[in-house]
Protein backbone atom coordinates (compact mmCIF):
# COMPACT_ATOMS: atom_id res chain seq x y z
CA UNK A 1 0.00 0.00 0.00
CA UNK A 2 1.07 3.56 -0.58
CA UNK A 3 -0.21 4.71 2.77
CA UNK A 4 -2.93 6.85 1.20
CA UNK A 5 -5.79 7.47 3.59
CA UNK A 6 -9.23 8.76 2.65
CA UNK A 7 -10.59 11.14 5.23
CA UNK A 8 -14.29 11.23 5.82
CA UNK A 9 -16.01 13.94 3.82
CA UNK A 10 -19.70 14.43 3.08
CA UNK A 11 -20.87 16.06 -0.14
CA UNK A 12 -24.29 17.40 0.88
CA UNK A 13 -26.63 17.40 3.85
CA UNK A 14 -29.27 15.18 2.20
CA UNK A 15 -26.93 12.28 2.97
CA UNK A 16 -27.28 12.90 6.72
CA UNK A 17 -30.96 13.64 7.29
CA UNK A 18 -32.55 12.32 10.48
CA UNK A 19 -34.76 9.33 9.63
CA UNK A 20 -38.06 11.12 10.31
CA UNK A 21 -37.13 13.99 7.99
CA UNK A 22 -35.96 11.56 5.34
CA UNK A 23 -39.22 9.61 5.57
CA UNK A 24 -41.28 12.79 5.21
CA UNK A 25 -39.19 13.84 2.20
CA UNK A 26 -39.52 10.41 0.59
CA UNK A 27 -43.29 10.37 1.12
CA UNK A 28 -43.74 13.81 -0.44
CA UNK A 29 -41.51 12.89 -3.38
CA UNK A 30 -43.24 9.54 -3.89
CA UNK A 31 -46.54 11.40 -4.19
CA UNK A 32 -45.00 13.70 -6.80
CA UNK A 33 -43.56 10.75 -8.71
CA UNK A 34 -46.88 8.90 -8.78
CA UNK A 35 -48.51 12.07 -10.12
CA UNK A 36 -45.77 12.42 -12.76
CA UNK A 37 -46.04 8.87 -14.09
CA UNK A 38 -49.73 9.44 -14.82
CA UNK A 39 -48.52 10.56 -18.26
CA UNK A 40 -46.96 7.16 -18.98
CA UNK A 41 -49.53 4.71 -20.41
CA UNK A 42 -47.89 1.70 -18.73
CA UNK A 43 -48.11 3.30 -15.29
CA UNK A 44 -51.50 4.88 -15.89
CA UNK A 45 -52.92 1.41 -16.58
CA UNK A 46 -51.01 -0.33 -13.78
CA UNK A 47 -51.89 2.31 -11.17
CA UNK A 48 -55.49 2.30 -12.34
CA UNK A 49 -55.65 -1.46 -11.93
CA UNK A 50 -54.11 -1.19 -8.44
CA UNK A 51 -56.49 1.66 -7.59
CA UNK A 52 -53.70 4.00 -6.55
CA UNK A 53 -53.71 7.76 -7.09
CA UNK A 54 -51.12 10.31 -5.99
CA UNK A 55 -53.57 11.67 -3.44
CA UNK A 56 -54.05 8.28 -1.85
CA UNK A 57 -50.33 8.08 -0.91
CA UNK A 58 -50.14 8.99 2.77
CA UNK A 59 -47.10 7.10 4.01
CA UNK A 60 -44.26 4.94 2.71
CA UNK A 61 -46.39 1.88 3.51
CA UNK A 62 -48.43 2.82 0.46
CA UNK A 63 -45.43 1.93 -1.69
CA UNK A 64 -46.41 -1.73 -1.45
CA UNK A 65 -49.68 -0.99 -3.22
CA UNK A 66 -47.77 0.18 -6.29
CA UNK A 67 -47.03 -2.17 -9.20
CA UNK A 68 -43.56 -3.53 -9.95
CA UNK A 69 -41.70 -2.60 -13.12
CA UNK A 70 -39.57 -5.25 -14.84
CA UNK A 71 -36.98 -5.24 -17.58
CA UNK A 72 -39.57 -6.85 -19.86
CA UNK A 73 -41.94 -3.93 -19.27
CA UNK A 74 -39.18 -1.57 -20.41
CA UNK A 75 -38.48 -3.74 -23.46
CA UNK A 76 -42.16 -3.78 -24.36
CA UNK A 77 -42.19 0.00 -24.39
CA UNK A 78 -38.98 0.35 -26.41
CA UNK A 79 -37.72 2.89 -27.20
CA UNK A 80 -39.51 5.75 -25.47
CA UNK A 81 -42.85 4.43 -24.27
CA UNK A 82 -41.87 5.09 -20.65
CA UNK A 83 -41.11 8.76 -21.25
CA UNK A 84 -42.99 11.03 -18.82
CA UNK A 85 -42.07 14.34 -20.50
CA UNK A 86 -42.22 15.71 -24.04
CA UNK A 87 -39.30 14.69 -26.19
CA UNK A 88 -38.24 18.31 -26.45
CA UNK A 89 -37.60 18.30 -22.70
CA UNK A 90 -35.05 15.48 -23.04
CA UNK A 91 -31.41 16.56 -22.82
CA UNK A 92 -29.73 13.17 -23.25
CA UNK A 93 -30.41 9.50 -23.91
CA UNK A 94 -28.47 6.49 -22.74
CA UNK A 95 -29.02 2.77 -23.22
CA UNK A 96 -28.52 -0.38 -21.23
CA UNK A 97 -25.06 -1.84 -21.61
CA UNK A 98 -24.42 -4.96 -23.50
CA UNK A 99 -25.57 -6.68 -26.49
CA UNK A 100 -26.16 -5.87 -30.09
CA UNK A 101 -29.87 -6.53 -29.69
CA UNK A 102 -32.19 -3.64 -28.85
CA UNK A 103 -30.96 -1.81 -25.77
CA UNK A 104 -33.29 -0.40 -23.14
CA UNK A 105 -33.27 3.33 -23.76
CA UNK A 106 -33.34 5.78 -20.88
CA UNK A 107 -33.78 9.56 -20.98
CA UNK A 108 -32.73 12.54 -18.88
CA UNK A 109 -33.98 16.11 -18.72
CA UNK A 110 -31.45 18.86 -18.02
CA UNK A 111 -32.53 18.75 -14.37
CA UNK A 112 -32.13 14.95 -14.32
CA UNK A 113 -28.55 15.33 -15.56
CA UNK A 114 -27.75 17.81 -12.79
CA UNK A 115 -29.37 15.53 -10.23
CA UNK A 116 -27.42 12.54 -11.56
CA UNK A 117 -24.08 14.40 -11.47
CA UNK A 118 -24.82 15.33 -7.86
CA UNK A 119 -25.46 11.68 -6.92
CA UNK A 120 -22.13 10.69 -8.47
CA UNK A 121 -20.38 13.57 -6.71
CA UNK A 122 -21.62 12.12 -3.41
CA UNK A 123 -20.01 8.73 -3.67
CA UNK A 124 -16.90 10.09 -5.35
CA UNK A 125 -16.42 12.52 -2.44
CA UNK A 126 -17.11 9.79 0.09
CA UNK A 127 -14.47 7.70 -1.66
CA UNK A 128 -11.68 10.27 -1.64
CA UNK A 129 -12.24 12.59 -4.59
CA UNK A 130 -11.06 16.15 -3.93
CA UNK A 131 -11.20 19.17 -6.29
CA UNK A 132 -7.42 19.07 -6.80
CA UNK A 133 -7.42 15.48 -8.10
CA UNK A 134 -7.29 14.26 -11.68
CA UNK A 135 -9.39 11.22 -12.55
CA UNK A 136 -8.85 8.83 -15.42
CA UNK A 137 -12.18 7.48 -16.63
CA UNK A 138 -11.65 4.13 -18.32
CA UNK A 139 -15.34 3.30 -18.56
CA UNK A 140 -16.74 3.28 -22.07
CA UNK A 141 -18.24 6.56 -23.23
CA UNK A 142 -21.38 6.08 -25.22
CA UNK A 143 -24.81 4.66 -24.60
CA UNK A 144 -23.44 2.99 -21.45
CA UNK A 145 -24.16 5.24 -18.45
CA UNK A 146 -20.81 4.54 -16.77
CA UNK A 147 -18.56 6.89 -18.73
CA UNK A 148 -20.72 9.99 -18.88
CA UNK A 149 -22.23 9.44 -15.43
CA UNK A 150 -18.86 9.45 -13.68
CA UNK A 151 -17.53 12.16 -15.99
CA UNK A 152 -20.05 14.75 -14.85
CA UNK A 153 -19.80 13.56 -11.25
CA UNK A 154 -16.07 14.26 -11.24
CA UNK A 155 -16.64 17.67 -12.83
CA UNK A 156 -19.31 18.45 -10.27
CA UNK A 157 -16.82 17.88 -7.48
CA UNK A 158 -14.51 20.33 -9.24
CA UNK A 159 -11.81 17.79 -10.03
CA UNK A 160 -10.38 17.23 -13.51
CA UNK A 161 -11.36 14.46 -15.89
CA UNK A 162 -9.14 12.53 -18.30
CA UNK A 163 -11.81 10.89 -20.47
CA UNK A 164 -9.72 8.06 -21.90
CA UNK A 165 -12.72 5.73 -22.28
CA UNK A 166 -12.30 1.96 -22.28
CA UNK A 167 -9.52 -0.06 -23.90
CA UNK A 168 -6.02 0.64 -25.28
CA UNK A 169 -4.19 -0.44 -22.14
CA UNK A 170 -0.69 0.86 -23.08
CA UNK A 171 -2.12 4.32 -23.68
CA UNK A 172 -4.03 4.20 -20.39
CA UNK A 173 -0.82 3.44 -18.50
CA UNK A 174 1.18 6.03 -20.44
CA UNK A 175 -1.33 8.73 -19.48
CA UNK A 176 -1.54 7.47 -15.92
CA UNK A 177 2.24 7.89 -15.63
CA UNK A 178 2.73 11.07 -17.65
CA UNK A 179 -0.28 12.89 -16.23
CA UNK A 180 0.40 11.63 -12.68
CA UNK A 181 -3.24 10.65 -12.34
CA UNK A 182 -4.69 10.46 -8.79
CA UNK A 183 -7.71 8.27 -9.33
CA UNK A 184 -9.03 5.62 -11.68
CA UNK A 185 -12.60 4.82 -12.67
CA UNK A 186 -13.29 1.51 -14.44
CA UNK A 187 -14.65 -2.00 -14.00
CA UNK A 188 -12.75 -4.18 -11.53
CA UNK A 189 -11.88 -6.62 -14.31
CA UNK A 190 -10.34 -3.87 -16.39
CA UNK A 191 -8.35 -2.78 -13.33
CA UNK A 192 -6.88 -6.29 -13.28
CA UNK A 193 -5.82 -5.91 -16.90
CA UNK A 194 -4.19 -2.56 -16.12
CA UNK A 195 -2.46 -4.02 -13.09
CA UNK A 196 -1.19 -6.94 -15.13
CA UNK A 197 0.27 -4.55 -17.70
CA UNK A 198 2.03 -2.57 -14.96
CA UNK A 199 3.56 -5.73 -13.53
CA UNK A 200 4.58 -7.17 -16.91
CA UNK A 201 6.30 -3.96 -17.91
CA UNK A 202 8.14 -3.59 -14.59
CA UNK A 203 6.68 -0.17 -13.95
CA UNK A 204 7.70 0.70 -10.38
CA UNK A 205 4.95 1.69 -7.97
CA UNK A 206 6.89 4.88 -7.24
CA UNK A 207 6.42 6.03 -10.84
CA UNK A 208 2.65 6.12 -10.34
CA UNK A 209 0.74 8.75 -8.44
CA UNK A 210 -2.44 6.68 -8.33
CA UNK A 211 -4.10 6.76 -4.91
CA UNK A 212 -7.53 5.22 -5.26
CA UNK A 213 -10.06 3.79 -7.69
CA UNK A 214 -13.83 3.65 -8.02
CA UNK A 215 -15.09 0.41 -9.47
CA UNK A 216 -18.54 -0.39 -10.79
CA UNK A 217 -20.40 -1.92 -13.71
CA UNK A 218 -20.11 -5.53 -12.56
CA UNK A 219 -20.18 -7.52 -9.34
CA UNK A 220 -16.84 -8.28 -7.68
CA UNK A 221 -15.57 -9.69 -4.40
CA UNK A 222 -13.62 -8.64 -1.30
CA UNK A 223 -10.86 -11.03 -2.40
CA UNK A 224 -10.52 -9.15 -5.64
CA UNK A 225 -10.35 -5.86 -3.74
CA UNK A 226 -7.53 -7.22 -1.56
CA UNK A 227 -5.67 -8.41 -4.63
CA UNK A 228 -5.94 -5.20 -6.68
CA UNK A 229 -5.10 -3.07 -3.65
CA UNK A 230 -1.99 -5.15 -2.99
CA UNK A 231 -0.88 -5.20 -6.62
CA UNK A 232 -1.52 -1.56 -7.44
CA UNK A 233 -0.96 -0.05 -4.00
CA UNK A 234 -4.24 1.86 -4.05
CA UNK A 235 -7.56 1.98 -2.20
CA UNK A 236 -10.52 0.60 -4.10
CA UNK A 237 -14.11 1.77 -3.64
CA UNK A 238 -17.27 0.06 -4.80
CA UNK A 239 -20.23 1.84 -6.34
CA UNK A 240 -23.51 0.64 -7.78
CA UNK A 241 -26.05 1.77 -10.27
CA UNK A 242 -28.04 0.69 -13.28
CA UNK A 243 -29.27 2.64 -16.25
CA UNK A 244 -32.93 1.78 -15.67
CA UNK A 245 -32.77 3.45 -12.24
CA UNK A 246 -30.40 6.29 -13.25
CA UNK A 247 -26.93 4.83 -13.90
CA UNK A 248 -24.00 4.99 -11.47
CA UNK A 249 -24.79 7.03 -8.38
CA UNK A 250 -27.53 4.88 -6.86
CA UNK A 251 -25.09 3.95 -4.09
CA UNK A 252 -21.40 3.96 -3.25
CA UNK A 253 -18.96 3.32 -0.43
CA UNK A 254 -17.75 5.93 2.03
CA UNK A 255 -14.32 5.98 3.71
CA UNK A 256 -15.51 3.23 6.09
CA UNK A 257 -15.88 0.89 3.07
CA UNK A 258 -18.49 -1.19 4.81
CA UNK A 259 -21.43 -1.22 2.44
CA UNK A 260 -22.65 1.26 -0.18
CA UNK A 261 -24.76 4.21 0.98
CA UNK A 262 -27.94 4.43 -1.05
CA UNK A 263 -29.04 8.00 -1.83
CA UNK A 264 -32.40 7.58 -0.14
CA UNK A 265 -33.57 11.12 -0.80
CA UNK A 266 -33.48 10.13 -4.49
CA UNK A 267 -34.55 6.48 -4.34
CA UNK A 268 -36.65 4.25 -2.13
CA UNK A 269 -35.03 0.85 -1.85
CA UNK A 270 -36.76 -2.40 -0.98
CA UNK A 271 -35.23 -5.83 -0.54
CA UNK A 272 -37.67 -8.62 -1.42
CA UNK A 273 -37.84 -12.35 -1.72
CA UNK A 274 -37.91 -12.80 -5.52
CA UNK A 275 -40.34 -15.73 -5.25
CA UNK A 276 -42.89 -14.42 -2.73
CA UNK A 277 -42.23 -10.71 -3.45
CA UNK A 278 -42.45 -10.13 0.33
CA UNK A 279 -39.82 -7.95 2.06
CA UNK A 280 -36.92 -9.79 3.70
CA UNK A 281 -35.68 -8.77 7.18
CA UNK A 282 -32.77 -6.27 7.33
CA UNK A 283 -29.41 -7.97 6.82
CA UNK A 284 -30.85 -10.81 4.80
CA UNK A 285 -30.18 -11.13 1.11
CA UNK A 286 -32.95 -10.47 -1.35
CA UNK A 287 -33.65 -8.79 -4.66
CA UNK A 288 -33.22 -5.03 -4.65
CA UNK A 289 -36.14 -2.95 -5.88
CA UNK A 290 -35.81 0.78 -6.52
CA UNK A 291 -38.31 3.59 -6.92
CA UNK A 292 -36.98 6.90 -8.22
CA UNK A 293 -38.09 10.03 -6.38
CA UNK A 294 -36.52 12.89 -8.33
CA UNK A 295 -36.38 11.78 -11.95
CA UNK A 296 -38.41 13.73 -14.50
CA UNK A 297 -37.86 12.14 -17.91
CA UNK A 298 -38.21 8.50 -16.91
CA UNK A 299 -39.40 8.03 -13.36
CA UNK A 300 -39.43 4.39 -12.36
CA UNK A 301 -41.67 2.67 -9.84
CA UNK A 302 -40.51 -0.41 -7.93
CA UNK A 303 -37.99 -1.53 -10.53
CA UNK A 304 -36.97 -5.14 -9.99
CA UNK A 305 -33.21 -5.05 -10.51
CA UNK A 306 -32.75 -8.86 -10.24
CA UNK A 307 -29.60 -8.02 -8.27
CA UNK A 308 -29.27 -9.95 -5.02
CA UNK A 309 -27.82 -8.06 -2.05
CA UNK A 310 -28.61 -7.25 1.58
CA UNK A 311 -29.50 -3.95 3.25
CA UNK A 312 -27.96 -2.61 6.44
CA UNK A 313 -29.97 0.12 8.20
CA UNK A 314 -27.45 0.51 11.07
CA UNK A 315 -25.86 3.97 11.46
CA UNK A 316 -22.46 4.34 9.80
CA UNK A 317 -19.35 5.82 11.41
CA UNK A 318 -19.16 8.39 8.59
CA UNK A 319 -22.26 10.25 9.75
CA UNK A 320 -24.45 9.46 6.76
CA UNK A 321 -27.85 8.23 7.86
CA UNK A 322 -28.69 6.41 4.66
CA UNK A 323 -29.15 2.66 4.45
CA UNK A 324 -26.20 0.70 3.07
CA UNK A 325 -26.34 -2.17 0.60
CA UNK A 326 -23.87 -5.03 0.58
CA UNK A 327 -22.10 -6.28 -2.50
CA UNK A 328 -24.26 -7.75 -5.22
CA UNK A 329 -23.74 -11.47 -4.76
CA UNK A 330 -25.91 -12.83 -7.54
CA UNK A 331 -28.92 -12.48 -9.76
CA UNK A 332 -32.50 -13.62 -9.34
CA UNK A 333 -32.55 -14.29 -13.07
CA UNK A 334 -29.98 -15.99 -15.26
CA UNK A 335 -28.15 -12.93 -16.57
CA UNK A 336 -24.38 -13.34 -16.87
CA UNK A 337 -21.88 -10.51 -17.00
CA UNK A 338 -19.07 -11.50 -19.36
CA UNK A 339 -16.26 -9.06 -20.03
CA UNK A 340 -18.59 -6.37 -18.71
CA UNK A 341 -21.33 -7.26 -21.20
CA UNK A 342 -24.75 -8.44 -20.04
CA UNK A 343 -25.62 -11.78 -21.58
CA UNK A 344 -28.65 -13.99 -21.06
CA UNK A 345 -28.67 -17.73 -21.80
CA UNK A 346 -31.75 -17.07 -23.93
CA UNK A 347 -29.51 -15.17 -26.35
CA UNK A 348 -27.33 -18.25 -26.80
CA UNK A 349 -30.48 -20.23 -27.43
CA UNK A 350 -31.60 -17.67 -29.98
CA UNK A 351 -28.22 -17.95 -31.73
CA UNK A 352 -28.39 -21.76 -31.82
CA UNK A 353 -31.87 -21.66 -33.26
CA UNK A 354 -30.51 -19.60 -36.14
CA UNK A 355 -28.05 -22.35 -37.01
CA UNK A 356 -29.76 -25.06 -38.97
CA UNK A 357 -29.65 -28.49 -37.42
CA UNK A 358 -28.55 -27.63 -33.90
CA UNK A 359 -30.65 -28.67 -30.94
CA UNK A 360 -31.47 -26.13 -28.25
CA UNK A 361 -29.58 -28.28 -25.75
CA UNK A 362 -26.60 -26.35 -24.56
CA UNK A 363 -24.59 -25.49 -21.49
CA UNK A 364 -22.51 -22.42 -20.80
CA UNK A 365 -19.32 -22.63 -18.79
CA UNK A 366 -17.58 -19.47 -17.70
CA UNK A 367 -14.07 -19.38 -16.36
CA UNK A 368 -11.45 -16.76 -15.69
CA UNK A 369 -8.19 -18.70 -15.82
CA UNK A 370 -5.96 -15.79 -16.73
CA UNK A 371 -7.97 -12.83 -15.52
CA UNK A 372 -10.05 -12.86 -18.66
CA UNK A 373 -13.47 -14.34 -18.99
CA UNK A 374 -13.47 -17.44 -21.14
CA UNK A 375 -16.85 -18.77 -22.12
CA UNK A 376 -17.41 -22.24 -23.50
CA UNK A 377 -20.73 -23.10 -25.05
CA UNK A 378 -21.32 -26.84 -25.25
CA UNK A 379 -23.81 -27.72 -27.95
CA UNK A 380 -25.36 -31.11 -28.51
CA UNK A 381 -25.16 -32.46 -32.03
CA UNK A 382 -28.09 -33.98 -33.83
CA UNK A 383 -28.12 -36.49 -36.64
CA UNK A 384 -29.02 -33.61 -38.92
CA UNK A 385 -26.11 -31.41 -37.91
CA UNK A 386 -23.53 -34.21 -37.80
CA UNK A 387 -21.45 -34.77 -40.90
CA UNK A 388 -18.71 -37.28 -41.59
CA UNK A 389 -16.71 -34.46 -43.18
CA UNK A 390 -14.32 -32.71 -40.83
CA UNK A 391 -14.57 -29.59 -42.95
CA UNK A 392 -18.34 -29.47 -42.56
CA UNK A 393 -18.04 -30.03 -38.84
CA UNK A 394 -15.59 -27.15 -38.52
CA UNK A 395 -17.94 -25.02 -40.59
CA UNK A 396 -20.79 -25.89 -38.25
CA UNK A 397 -18.71 -24.69 -35.32
CA UNK A 398 -17.92 -21.49 -37.17
CA UNK A 399 -21.59 -20.90 -37.99
CA UNK A 400 -22.49 -21.29 -34.31
CA UNK A 401 -19.62 -19.00 -33.34
CA UNK A 402 -20.81 -16.35 -35.82
CA UNK A 403 -24.40 -16.57 -34.64
CA UNK A 404 -23.38 -16.15 -30.99
CA UNK A 405 -21.09 -13.26 -31.86
CA UNK A 406 -23.84 -11.65 -33.91
CA UNK A 407 -26.26 -11.66 -31.01
CA UNK A 408 -24.03 -11.12 -27.97
CA UNK A 409 -21.08 -9.28 -29.50
CA UNK A 410 -18.79 -11.79 -27.76
CA UNK A 411 -16.56 -14.59 -28.97
CA UNK A 412 -17.15 -17.87 -27.18
CA UNK A 413 -15.55 -21.28 -27.53
CA UNK A 414 -17.99 -23.60 -29.19
CA UNK A 415 -17.69 -27.24 -28.20
CA UNK A 416 -19.73 -29.91 -29.95
CA UNK A 417 -20.87 -32.81 -27.78
CA UNK A 418 -22.87 -36.00 -28.27
CA UNK A 419 -26.64 -35.92 -27.94
CA UNK A 420 -28.13 -36.49 -24.51
CA UNK A 421 -24.85 -35.86 -22.74
CA UNK A 422 -25.82 -32.48 -21.25
CA UNK A 423 -28.05 -32.29 -18.20
CA UNK A 424 -31.78 -32.22 -18.81
CA UNK A 425 -33.87 -30.05 -16.56
CA UNK A 426 -37.24 -30.39 -15.04
CA UNK A 427 -38.55 -26.89 -14.48
CA UNK A 428 -36.00 -24.10 -14.27
CA UNK A 429 -32.94 -24.89 -16.36
CA UNK A 430 -29.49 -24.38 -14.89
CA UNK A 431 -27.59 -23.84 -18.07
CA UNK A 432 -24.77 -21.75 -16.70
CA UNK A 433 -21.79 -23.13 -14.82
CA UNK A 434 -19.80 -20.17 -13.53
CA UNK A 435 -16.41 -21.21 -12.21
CA UNK A 436 -15.45 -17.57 -11.61
CA UNK A 437 -17.35 -17.46 -8.33
CA UNK A 438 -14.54 -19.30 -6.59
CA UNK A 439 -12.23 -16.30 -7.04
Amino acid sequence: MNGFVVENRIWDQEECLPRNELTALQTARLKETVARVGKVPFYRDALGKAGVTADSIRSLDDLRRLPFTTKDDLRNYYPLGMLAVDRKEVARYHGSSGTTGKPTMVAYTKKDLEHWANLCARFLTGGGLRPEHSVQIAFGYGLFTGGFGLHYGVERVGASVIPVSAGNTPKQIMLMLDMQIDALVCTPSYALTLSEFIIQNDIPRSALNLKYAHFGGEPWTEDLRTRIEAEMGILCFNNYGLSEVIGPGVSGECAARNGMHISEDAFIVECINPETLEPVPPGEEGELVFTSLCKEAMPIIRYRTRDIASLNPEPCACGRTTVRMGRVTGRSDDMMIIKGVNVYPSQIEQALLRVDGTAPHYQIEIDRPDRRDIVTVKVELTEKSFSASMKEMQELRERIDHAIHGITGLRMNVELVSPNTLDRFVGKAQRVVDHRKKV
Partner: protein
Amino acid sequence: MKLKQLSVFLENKPGRLRELCALLADNGINIITLSLADTEQFGILRLIIKEYERAKSLLEGKGFVAKLTDVIAVEVKDEPGGLSRILQIEQEAGISVEYMYAFTIKSGENAVLLFRFDDMDKALDALQASGMGVLHSLELYQRAES
Protein backbone atom coordinates in the same frame (compact mmCIF):
# COMPACT_ATOMS: atom_id res chain seq x y z
CA MET B 1 -21.76 -48.66 -56.96
CA LYS B 2 -21.52 -46.37 -53.98
CA LEU B 3 -21.47 -48.05 -50.65
CA LYS B 4 -22.41 -47.11 -47.14
CA GLN B 5 -19.99 -45.94 -44.51
CA LEU B 6 -21.20 -45.57 -40.95
CA SER B 7 -19.89 -42.28 -39.55
CA VAL B 8 -19.94 -41.74 -35.81
CA PHE B 9 -19.29 -38.61 -33.78
CA LEU B 10 -16.86 -39.21 -30.92
CA GLU B 11 -16.26 -36.73 -28.16
CA ASN B 12 -12.68 -36.67 -27.01
CA LYS B 13 -13.47 -38.33 -23.73
CA PRO B 14 -11.60 -41.30 -22.30
CA GLY B 15 -13.33 -44.60 -22.94
CA ARG B 16 -15.70 -43.42 -25.63
CA LEU B 17 -14.06 -45.37 -28.50
CA ARG B 18 -13.72 -48.47 -26.36
CA GLU B 19 -17.39 -48.23 -25.41
CA LEU B 20 -18.32 -48.17 -29.09
CA CYS B 21 -16.12 -51.11 -30.00
CA ALA B 22 -17.40 -53.17 -27.07
CA LEU B 23 -20.97 -52.52 -28.11
CA LEU B 24 -20.31 -53.80 -31.64
CA ALA B 25 -18.32 -56.78 -30.35
CA ASP B 26 -21.02 -57.80 -27.87
CA ASN B 27 -23.48 -57.86 -30.74
CA GLY B 28 -21.25 -59.89 -33.00
CA ILE B 29 -20.64 -57.10 -35.45
CA ASN B 30 -17.31 -57.16 -37.24
CA ILE B 31 -15.60 -54.01 -38.45
CA ILE B 32 -14.18 -54.52 -41.94
CA THR B 33 -12.11 -51.38 -41.77
CA LEU B 34 -12.18 -47.99 -40.11
CA SER B 35 -10.56 -44.61 -40.01
CA LEU B 36 -10.54 -41.99 -37.28
CA ALA B 37 -10.23 -38.29 -37.99
CA ASP B 38 -9.79 -36.14 -34.96
CA THR B 39 -9.34 -32.59 -33.70
CA GLU B 40 -8.51 -31.45 -30.20
CA GLN B 41 -12.19 -31.48 -29.34
CA PHE B 42 -13.82 -34.34 -31.14
CA GLY B 43 -13.31 -37.14 -33.61
CA ILE B 44 -15.22 -38.65 -36.49
CA LEU B 45 -15.04 -42.41 -36.70
CA ARG B 46 -15.70 -43.87 -40.16
CA LEU B 47 -16.62 -47.52 -40.23
CA ILE B 48 -17.17 -50.05 -42.95
CA ILE B 49 -19.54 -52.66 -41.57
CA LYS B 50 -21.68 -55.26 -43.35
CA GLU B 51 -24.61 -54.82 -40.98
CA TYR B 52 -24.43 -51.04 -40.94
CA GLU B 53 -28.15 -50.51 -40.30
CA ARG B 54 -28.11 -52.72 -37.21
CA ALA B 55 -24.88 -51.13 -36.01
CA LYS B 56 -26.38 -47.68 -36.48
CA SER B 57 -29.45 -48.38 -34.38
CA LEU B 58 -27.36 -50.07 -31.68
CA LEU B 59 -25.10 -47.02 -31.46
CA GLU B 60 -27.99 -44.59 -31.48
CA GLY B 61 -29.56 -46.55 -28.67
CA LYS B 62 -26.46 -45.78 -26.64
CA GLY B 63 -26.53 -42.07 -27.39
CA PHE B 64 -24.06 -41.88 -30.26
CA VAL B 65 -24.76 -39.70 -33.28
CA ALA B 66 -24.29 -41.88 -36.35
CA LYS B 67 -24.94 -41.26 -39.97
CA LEU B 68 -24.68 -43.21 -43.21
CA THR B 69 -22.44 -41.66 -45.80
CA ASP B 70 -21.76 -42.74 -49.39
CA VAL B 71 -18.20 -43.74 -50.21
CA ILE B 72 -16.58 -45.39 -53.22
CA ALA B 73 -14.41 -48.50 -52.88
CA VAL B 74 -11.76 -49.18 -55.49
CA GLU B 75 -9.76 -52.37 -55.65
CA VAL B 76 -6.18 -52.01 -56.84
CA LYS B 77 -3.10 -54.20 -56.94
CA ASP B 78 -1.14 -53.88 -53.72
CA GLU B 79 1.89 -52.41 -55.44
CA PRO B 80 3.49 -48.98 -56.01
CA GLY B 81 1.38 -46.56 -58.06
CA GLY B 82 -2.05 -48.01 -57.22
CA LEU B 83 -3.35 -44.92 -55.43
CA SER B 84 -1.46 -42.47 -57.60
CA ARG B 85 -3.33 -43.67 -60.71
CA ILE B 86 -6.76 -43.07 -59.11
CA LEU B 87 -5.78 -39.63 -57.90
CA GLN B 88 -4.59 -38.75 -61.38
CA ILE B 89 -7.94 -39.79 -62.89
CA GLU B 90 -9.87 -37.70 -60.40
CA GLN B 91 -7.58 -34.73 -60.75
CA GLU B 92 -8.05 -34.75 -64.48
CA ALA B 93 -11.81 -34.86 -63.94
CA GLY B 94 -11.51 -31.85 -61.57
CA ILE B 95 -12.57 -33.75 -58.45
CA SER B 96 -11.07 -33.51 -54.98
CA VAL B 97 -10.75 -36.13 -52.28
CA GLU B 98 -12.47 -35.14 -49.04
CA TYR B 99 -10.97 -38.05 -47.17
CA MET B 100 -9.79 -41.60 -47.83
CA TYR B 101 -8.51 -44.70 -46.12
CA ALA B 102 -7.38 -48.14 -47.20
CA PHE B 103 -6.97 -51.77 -46.19
CA THR B 104 -5.39 -54.80 -47.75
CA ILE B 105 -7.37 -57.90 -48.49
CA LYS B 106 -6.48 -61.07 -46.59
CA SER B 107 -5.27 -62.88 -49.73
CA GLY B 108 -2.57 -60.22 -49.80
CA GLU B 109 -2.51 -59.39 -53.48
CA ASN B 110 -4.94 -56.50 -53.60
CA ALA B 111 -5.76 -53.42 -51.58
CA VAL B 112 -9.13 -51.69 -51.23
CA LEU B 113 -9.15 -47.91 -51.17
CA LEU B 114 -12.18 -46.09 -49.78
CA PHE B 115 -12.88 -42.57 -50.97
CA ARG B 116 -15.15 -39.72 -50.25
CA PHE B 117 -15.00 -37.21 -53.11
CA ASP B 118 -16.51 -33.75 -53.28
CA ASP B 119 -18.54 -34.87 -56.32
CA MET B 120 -19.34 -38.53 -55.84
CA ASP B 121 -21.28 -39.12 -59.08
CA LYS B 122 -18.71 -37.49 -61.30
CA ALA B 123 -15.93 -39.34 -59.47
CA LEU B 124 -17.64 -42.67 -60.03
CA ASP B 125 -18.10 -41.95 -63.74
CA ALA B 126 -14.44 -41.01 -64.11
CA LEU B 127 -13.26 -44.17 -62.35
CA GLN B 128 -15.50 -46.46 -64.31
CA ALA B 129 -14.60 -44.80 -67.60
CA SER B 130 -10.97 -45.50 -66.78
CA GLY B 131 -11.70 -49.14 -66.08
CA MET B 132 -10.80 -48.99 -62.40
CA GLY B 133 -12.03 -51.81 -60.18
CA VAL B 134 -14.89 -50.10 -58.38
CA LEU B 135 -16.45 -52.53 -55.90
CA HIS B 136 -20.09 -52.73 -55.02
CA SER B 137 -20.98 -53.56 -51.46
CA LEU B 138 -21.38 -57.32 -51.85
CA GLU B 139 -18.02 -57.58 -53.57
CA LEU B 140 -16.42 -55.58 -50.79
CA TYR B 141 -17.87 -57.83 -48.07
CA GLN B 142 -16.79 -60.94 -50.00
CA ARG B 143 -13.25 -59.60 -50.32
CA ALA B 144 -13.16 -58.82 -46.62
CA GLU B 145 -14.38 -62.29 -45.64
CA SER B 146 -12.40 -64.42 -48.09
